[in-house]
């Protein structure tokens, strides 16, 4: 059982950069041959309105994260040489090899004494990445920069009308230090029997040669993912409440991965939560931001609340590709969490 507890780590700031191009469902009508009825169904049932994507696919998830990180470090007055570790959580690295994180660390000005590595995870990636960052702090590092992000535009089939309209591009940067006085609790899970519910067949070494022209695109079995979510998420909440010795009413905010409006509404109603405790509009506006969806929701919809001088009890929960899922309970007080930044193209 992967239940973890940490006592020293604290989140000091969260910044998210979103793609610079806004596409509404109506903008995509011709591309996907949507009827008016298709658009009405997607809006009503899944809550989709628009998505923010990169306008220029020379740029990647690492570029989105670097922009977030620069703003975060500048506003928190942290110098790159103070960063002990850089972790990049993504399903869209710059290259299959090597890891992207060392290059990001160098771009940010971190010295060779900074450890840097990638983690390959998507929807659960923020919670998993946070647990690793917290573990490094517990292991005596002082400052860890966690980057979570994906540019799904690089792997979506432009003709896939069931998947492409859902996905946005975003990259977040989160600074963690050793200033906490209160414990944080994590519960983490995985189930590889569902590994092909969401996967890119031609993305690794298992299927190098393929006659399928779509092998390089993400494939999703929506029904399997839906069933998985309904099965595991409610149970996960029971377990994180028990592990953190808290209950649903003592938690101020539930910041969840944002797959669609129905799933979030279902969780909200099962737990009996008011709308104000569980923001659910991220995917509607920005698209599914993968590993950046939880920090993206903080920046998009809880920016004001997370910057107040008042301790908040927060549960973060991610679930999806892998299959992989996890939740954590942390206390948040007055962190730097501005509204999302729009990606600015900078030619090097």
């Amino acid at each position, binding site marked *: 059982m992967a239940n973890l507890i940490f006592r020293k780590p604290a989140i000091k700031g969260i910044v998210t950069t979103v793609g610079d191009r806004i596409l509404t469902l109506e903008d995509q009508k011709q591309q996907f041959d949507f009827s008016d*009825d298709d658009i*009405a*169904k*997607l809006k*009503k*049932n*899944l809550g989709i309105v628009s998505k923010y994507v990169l306008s220029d696919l020379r740029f990647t998830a690492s570029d989105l994260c670097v922009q977030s990180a620069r703003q975060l470090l500048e506003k928190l007055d942290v110098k790159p040489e103070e960063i002990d570790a850089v972790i990049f959580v993504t399903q869209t690295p710059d290259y299959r090899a090597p890891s992207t994180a060392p290059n990001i660390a160098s771009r940010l000005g971190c010295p060779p004494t900074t450890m840097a590595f990638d983690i390959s995870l998507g929807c659960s990636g923020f919670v998993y990445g946070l647990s690793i960052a917290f573990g490094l702090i517990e292991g005596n590092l002082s400052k860890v920069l966690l980057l979570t992000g994906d540019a799904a535009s690089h792997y979506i089939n432009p003709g896939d009308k*069931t998947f492409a309209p859902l996905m946005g591009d975003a990259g977040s940067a989160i600074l963690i230090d050793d200033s906490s006085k209160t414990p944080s609790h994590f519960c983490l899970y995985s189930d590889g029997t569902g590994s092909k519910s969401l996967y890119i067949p031609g993305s690794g070494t298992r299927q190098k040669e393929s006659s399928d022209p779509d092998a390089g695109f993400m494939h999703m079995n*929506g*029904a*399997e993912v*839906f*069933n*998985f979510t*309904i*099965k595991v998420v409610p149970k996960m909440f029971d377990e994180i409440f028990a592990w953190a010795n808290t209950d649903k009413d003592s938690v101020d905010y539930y910041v969840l991965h944002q797959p669609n409006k*129905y799933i979030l509404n*279902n969780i909200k*109603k*099962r737990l009996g939560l008011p709308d104000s405790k569980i923001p659910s509009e991220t995917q509607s506006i920005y698209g599914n931001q993968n590993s950046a969806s939880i920090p993206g929701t903080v920046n998009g919809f809880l920016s004001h609340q997370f910057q107040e001088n008042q301790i908040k009890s927060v549960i973060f929960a991610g679930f999806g590709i892998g299959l992989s899922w996890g939740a954590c309970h942390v206390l948040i007080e007055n962190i730097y969490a501005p509204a999302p930044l729009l990606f600015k193209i900078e030619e090097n």
Partner: protein
Amino acid sequence: MNLKDLLINVISTLNEDWENEALAQINDETNVFIHIDSISLLSIIIETESALENELGRYVPLADEKLMDSQNSPFLSFKDWVNFVAEKIGSQ
């Protein structure tokens, strides 16, 4: 509340937009699953939850790992769907 009528009414109302001939006349053996896509199934779930909440004054979550399972979905026959919803109401 006549549950069967309520569930027929939900699907029939949605089908006014879908115009799916296979769902024009629903009987116990109607296989809803094979005639619509997963987003339309989600529409039925959402509209049924909403209709039940209006009728019963409480939320009855219907989402279940069986719903979109091609082998075991209660949508494979309308009769099973009625029984499935009745069980959910009874267990909440």
